[in-house]
Structures are given as C-alpha cells and as structure tokens.
C-alpha cells in the first residue's frame, strides 16, 4: 500500500506536492453503518508553503478532512501522503486548531499554549533546560492575539472567542511545517477577526509554512488563501477550485475591490450549488 | 550464643511467663542462648510456623502437632518438652443449666470455634461417656463470640480450655460459682497438653541448645510458681494492656489444672509415661481420622532433656 509514496521518497517530495490525497474515503464507525461516510473519492494536492482554504456546507466533511491529513482518523481507503510519507499515524509536524478550542482545563492559558513545546521533539529538551525563551514566545503570541494579561487564568475563565484565540496560539507556538486551522476565527467579532487575518498572513509570509484553513466566511477564505476549494455535501469531495490571484500582502481595503467581491460571489455560487446537491 | 526464635500458642498470657522470665532475668543468656519470644495465633498456626522454619521452637498442643505431621509427612515435628501434664480441655455450661452429666448433653447445642481442640476431640469424650455424638448441634463461632453466646443462652454449653474460658466468663461478668465445667481429664479422657515442639533436624543439629532451653524454661517454671507477681510483670512488659489480676488468676489456674500434677511434683517436669502417651495418641488418631498411628517415639522424645535432677519443680 505504501510502496507508491515510499518509492518517491522524501527527496522526490521537493517536486511532488507536500500533501497529496488521492481517491480517499473515510467512514466513521463500521463500514456498513449508514450516514457515517464523511469523505468519498476525495482528491486534493497542496504544495509546500501554499495557503489553501476549504469551504463547504455544514457537515460536509471539512473537519474530517483535517483529521484525515493529520492522521488523527485513519482513512478507510485511498492514499494520503504528507511530504511523501504515507499517513498511517498522527503526524508530528502539524499544528492544529480544532473547531472547538479544547483547552486542557487543568492548565492555565500560558500552560496550554506551551503544551506543544513540552511534547514536540526538538523543543521539549530545550524547554526542560530553559523555559524562559519559550515563555517569552508564548507571551508574545498571546499579545499578538490580544490576550495579554490572561496568561495565568484557566481556559474556562475566558470567553468563547478568547478561548479560540488561545487555541490558535497553541497551534502556532511550535512553528509547525503545516498548519491545520478549523474555523479559527468563528467566534470572533469582525474587527478582532480582521486583525488576526493580518497576523496570520504576516506569519505565513515570514515563515512560509503550509496552511490549510477551513472557514465559513468566504471573504476570509479569499483574503487569506492562495487557492480555495469548495467541497460538496456529505460525502465530501472537492467540486470546485479557484486560485486567488491577489497580490501579497493583502490589505484590509482589498475586501472592497471588485476582484475580491467577484471571487467571493463566485465561491458563493459554488457553495450554494454544493448545498443544493443535498 | 545460639539464636532461638520461639513462638507461643496464643497472645501473651500469664503462664507464658515460664518462657519470658528466663529471657528477662538473663537465664537463657547465661545458658548461651539468645531467645526471642513471639505471640502465636493458635496451636495449629504455631506448628505450621515451626515446620516452615519461620521459628525454631514453638509452644503448641501436642495433638495439633500429630495432626499436622499426618498431613505433612515430609515436615514432621517432634515434642521435646511436655509442659502441660494434663490437658485443660473441658466443656463449660452455666451452673443453672440442667446439664449435669455428660449424657445430659444429648441433643444440646454447643458453640465452639471449628478448630478448637476440645471440639475436635469431642468424639473421645463422647465415646468415654457413651454419649451419642451425632445428636449434638454445633455452632461455629470465632473465639470472641463463644462465651457471650453461652451467657446469652444461645448455646447450652461451650467447649474450650478451662483456663481460657473460665477467665473469659469472669471478664463478662460471670462468677466462678455461676459456671459448671466438665474437664475431659476427669471424664475418662486422659490427654496431655501443650509441649515445646521442634523440627527433628533442628533438634539434632542443636541438641545442646535445646537442652539448655529446657533448663532455662524449668527455671522459668519454678520462678513463675515462686513469684506470680513477677511473672505477670514479665508478661505485662510485653503486652502493657493485659490485666494484672486476670493474668495472676490465669497463672494460678494453669498451674492447678494443667501444669502441676502429682507426677510433676514427684518426677519433675516433662515426665511422660510412654504407655499413657501411646494410648492417648491412639485415641486421638482415631478421632482425627488418622490411619497411620504414629509410634510414641515419633511424637515425643526425652533425649534432649537435661538430667532429671535439673527438672525438679518445687511448689
């Protein structure tokens, strides 16, 4: 099964797409259970360093796609490789912000943000020797998302939107190669959201990691991503893909340009069609 | 100095002073022994512990030892010093009870711990007194329930060592005059009592140490007779919670009923007549369902006794 991908090897990965999903499907639970087929005949390729967004109707399998790529839930059939390696167990190179913030209730905000540092390989040893630089990094990240002063509170003492921002920081802190963001700004007001768009875009331009963003906000997808995929209703697969040809860094006022609005309308039409398919 | 780990048959009681006083006054030490005395959890437990090697010497009912030997032919023990010349096994009832002779027990309810020697040897008592053993209804209880059941009338009679039961009954408010007893020894069951037991191999290897232990214990026996108060103090040192009065009574009772007989006064301690021992072993073996009756020489040996002159007991 793994031969294909293995044959290409990590060296070949330079040429081959960073994430490659071919004809994959994913069932939850037993195969014969009805209503548990979340993805079917799914194809997707993401190049290294690309910023890709995925949109689609509620329940179409976007979160499932995230779990598929990160290896959290094993595919039922097809091929999934990341960096040329078959995904059979959870990857060690992802940063993931779940749809639901999932902060560990026994840890303070700071400790939650530091969690990946304590777990992920090169950092954990360094962290054990010297916490200070990492704590500083975590505080800087929290400051960026507007959460200065909440470091020592528990996650459940924060508002929904604040928790979501903590979760975003946790996905970023260990500077993963690939970032999987599942509606990271869903619970935020427009202004905070737009501020964080800028933060994320800047980080991406600086660091050049690969990002897969799931969102319901079409302007968000257009503003941030270089390419947007539209998924069909469950069982999800890609039914439309568009490249967003807007110069970087994109500015807030780009939202009001006709090209931007056109992209949004185009996507809107396709999402609408995807829902109709239900 | 030879180390001797010695285990008693039960928690510290007055009569055990014959083993603790020689520790306290240095007699054992003078005899080249370093003796530790631990309490036990019943004769059966004691013989198993000696057989296992956890202890070198033990103080246990000689018939318990016989039964153990039968079950564990590879780990037999042997008695080297007979301490109780007379068994204290007895049946006790209230003085007001209609049970006056052994035959009156027919159809009555008796309470007793299942492992209690008196109960186990009841068939001998029944046979000697022509009593239908099957008509007895037994209730199995732990030792701490036995006397209360008698007092409350839920049992017509109980079985147990005189020296234990009498004092227990007094402890829960009965007067000696309220109690009637039938000691086996007075009703045709001529049994011996507790002895010092040891593994034959150990004894063979440490013959002189055993002899010295017996010397020391005879010294303790005499010291206990001479100064019961001192004996009680020696026990109280090991268990500060014992009641001095009760243990003093117990020493007196043990001496009277079990330890000092005409035989002992005349011949000294541990004078076992082979015929008497053989007879009792045969009876007991039958009661226990032992097919291979052990010869007396496998039960008790006098070869580790010091000379008779050193075994004298003075009242």
């Amino acid at each position, binding site marked *: *099964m793994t031969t294909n991908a293995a044959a290409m090897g990590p060296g070949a990965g330079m040429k081959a797409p960073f994430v490659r999903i071919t004809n994959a499907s994913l069932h939850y639970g037993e195969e014969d259970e009805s209503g548990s087929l979340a993805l079917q005949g799914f194809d997707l390729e993401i190049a290294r360093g690309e910023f890709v967004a995925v949109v689609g109707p509620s329940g179409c399998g976007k979160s499932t796609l995230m779990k598929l790529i990160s290896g959290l839930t094993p595919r039922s059939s097809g091929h999934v490789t990341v960096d040329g390696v078959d995904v059979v167990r959870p990857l060690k190179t992802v940063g993931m912000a779940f749809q639901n913030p999932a902060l560990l209730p026994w840890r303070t905000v700071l400790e939650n943000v530091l969690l990946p540092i304590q777990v992920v390989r090169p950092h954990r040893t360094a962290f054990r020797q010297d916490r200070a630089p990492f704590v500083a990094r975590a505080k800087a990240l929290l400051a960026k998302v507007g959460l200065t002063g909440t470091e020592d509170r528990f996650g*459940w003492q924060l508002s929904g939107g604040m928790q979501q921002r903590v979760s975003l920081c946790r996905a970023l802190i260990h500077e993963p190669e690939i970032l999987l963001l599942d509606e990271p700004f869903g619970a935020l007001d427009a202004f905070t959201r737009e501020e964080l768009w800028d933060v994320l875009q800047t980080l991406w331009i600086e660091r050049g990691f690969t990002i897969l963003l799931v969102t319901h906000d079409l302007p968000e997808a257009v503003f941030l991503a270089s390419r947007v995929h539209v998924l069909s209703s469950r069982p999800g697969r890609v039914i439309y893909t568009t490249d967003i040809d807007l110069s970087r860094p994109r500015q807030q006022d780009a939202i009001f340009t006709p090209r931007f609005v056109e992209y949004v309308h185009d996507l809107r039409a396709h999402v609408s069609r995807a829902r109709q398919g239900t | 100095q030879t180390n001797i780990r010695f285990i008693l048959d039960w928690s510290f009681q007055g009569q055990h002073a014959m083993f603790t006083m020689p520790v306290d006054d240095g007699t054992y030490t003078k005899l080249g022994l370093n003796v530790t005395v631990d309490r036990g959890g019943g004769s*059966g437990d004691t013989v*198993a512990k000696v*057989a*296992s090697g956890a202890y070198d010497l033990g103080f246990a009912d000689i018939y318990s030892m016989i*039964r*153990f030997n039968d*079950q*564990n032919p*590879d*780990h037999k023990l042997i008695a080297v010093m007979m301490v109780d010349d007379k068994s204290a096994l007895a049946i006790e009832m209230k003085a007001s009870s209609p049970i006056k002779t052994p035959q009156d027990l027919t159809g009555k309810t008796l309470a007793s*711990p*299942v*492992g209690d020697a008196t109960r*186990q040897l009841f068939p001998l008592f029944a046979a000697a007194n022509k009593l239908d053993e099957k008509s007895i209804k*037994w*209730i*199995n*209880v*732990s030792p*701490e*329930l036995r006397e*209360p*059941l008698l007092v*409350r009338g*839920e049992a017509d009679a109980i079985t147990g060592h005189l020296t234990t039961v009498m004092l227990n009954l007094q402890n829960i408010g009965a007067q000696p005059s309220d109690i009637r007893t039938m000691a086996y020894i007075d009703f045709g069951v001529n049994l011996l009592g507790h002895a010092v037991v040891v593994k034959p191999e150990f004894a063979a290897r440490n013959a002189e140490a055993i002899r010295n232990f017996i010397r020391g214990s005879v010294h303790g026996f005499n010291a206990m007779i001479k100064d019961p108060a001192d004996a009680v103090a020696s026990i109280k040192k090991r268990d500060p919670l014992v009641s001095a009065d009760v243990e003093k009574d117990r020493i007196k009772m043990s001496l009277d009923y079990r330890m000092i007989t005409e035989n002992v006064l005349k011949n000294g301690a541990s004078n076992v007549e082979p015929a008497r021992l053989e007879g009792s072993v045969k009876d007991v073996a039958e009661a*226990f369902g032992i097919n291979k009756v052990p010869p007396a020489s496998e039960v008790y040996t006098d070869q580790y006794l010091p000379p008779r002159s050193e075994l004298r007991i003075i009242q």
Partner: protein
Amino acid sequence: MKYKRTIRRAAYSASPWIATIGFFLSWELGCRLLNVPPFILPTPSAAIGSLLEYRDGIWLNASHTLVTTLLGFALAVVFGAGLGVIVGGSPLLYRALNPLLIGFNSIPKVAVVPILVLWFGIGFVPAVLTAFLVAFFPITVNVATGIVTMQPELRDVLRSLGASRTDILFRVGLPCSMPYFFASLKIAITLAFVGSVISETVASNVGIGYLMMSASATFRVPLVFAALLVIAGMGIIMYAAAAVLEWRFAGWAMRT
C-alpha cells in the same frame, strides 16, 4: 497486513486466558523449584486436585456464599449509590457525613461481625450485612465524586431550564457518574466477597468462609486454596456481568 491484524485480534481476545494460565504456571513452577511445602503455599495443581476431590462440598458452600454475597452486594449497590447521590448532591451532607463514613470504613469489619451475630443470630443475616457494610463505601465515594465533578457546562444546560436540584442530579449528575459507578462496582464486588467470607469465618455453619476455617484447622491447606480459587472465580464471573452493564450504560464515556 490483514493477517497481522487477525493475529493481534486473537491475542487480544485470548489475553485474559494467557495471563491467567501464565500466572498459574509460574505459581506451580515457583512452588516446585523453591520446594515450598504445601502447608505454606500449595501448588495450584494440588489446589485444583482438592477442588475436584471435594467438589460437592465446595459447591454446596460456594453457592451459599454466592447467594449471601449477591444479596449483600445488591444492598450495597442500592444503598451506596443512593447515599452517593444524596451526598454528591448536597455539599452540606457531603461535609457532615464524610468523617463518619471514613471513620466507619477504616474499622476492620471483623470487629463488627460479632456484634451483628449477637444481634441477628448466627449465619445468613450477619454475612449479608457484612458484605453490604464492606462494599457500599466505594460505591458511595465514586458516585458522589462523579456527581461533584460533573461538567459545569452540562449542568448549566439543566439549570437554564429551571430544573430542580433533583432533576439536575438525575439527568446530568447520575449519567456523568456512571463511569465512576461502574468502576466502583468492580471494587465493591470483590469487597462483598471478602465481607461475606470473613463473616462466615467468624460465625457460620456453612459457606466458603466456614470451609476455609475448618480446612485450615485440619491443615488441609490445598483445600483452603481450592476455596480461595472458587471465590476468585465467582468474583470474576460477577465482574464480567457488571462489565456488560458498563458497556451498555457508560459506553458513551469511552467514545473514540
């Protein structure tokens, strides 16, 4: 790959047997190699031999103990869970009763059995009561803990409906404490067996406890261990029954 998975599955389902048989084998070997005399620790083969030899007597006593234990256990479940709900639902009662409960349970129940015997007579009732007294506490503690630590978000759902404290207790607290409850059943069933056997050793004319007492009084140690094996077996069977219920009622907590 399929082949590998089949093997792994087989290993998984056979694992309890493998572990148990391995345990008995090493016990047997240990006894033989170290030459442990049977009155200290008999070999399992000797114990099983005794078990077969005395199967009728053992069966009689075992069934008696089983009934006793089950009754005591049933009482413990009902009372223990009830007390757990009450105590978990009321911080005041929790605080008030904690010392009494802890104190009472620190006491070895052997000390209490004679009292029960003097009150209820010898035999069945004290054994049932002892099993009950020994077994209810873990259930109470676990149910109360489960209720106290119920997820506050879920509790708020009920509160926002104006639900009474009882409603919250039964609709959120109890389901939340189900995994704790079933965990405590494992503990309680083993303790119930210990309780009834202990009571039988103190005062009873029948039952595994009595059998153990009389076997050990006559130095039939393999028989004692045969009795222990029977108790262990009954405990396992009872637990298996509870595990089925656990899967049914608390399976959601182990969702993947």
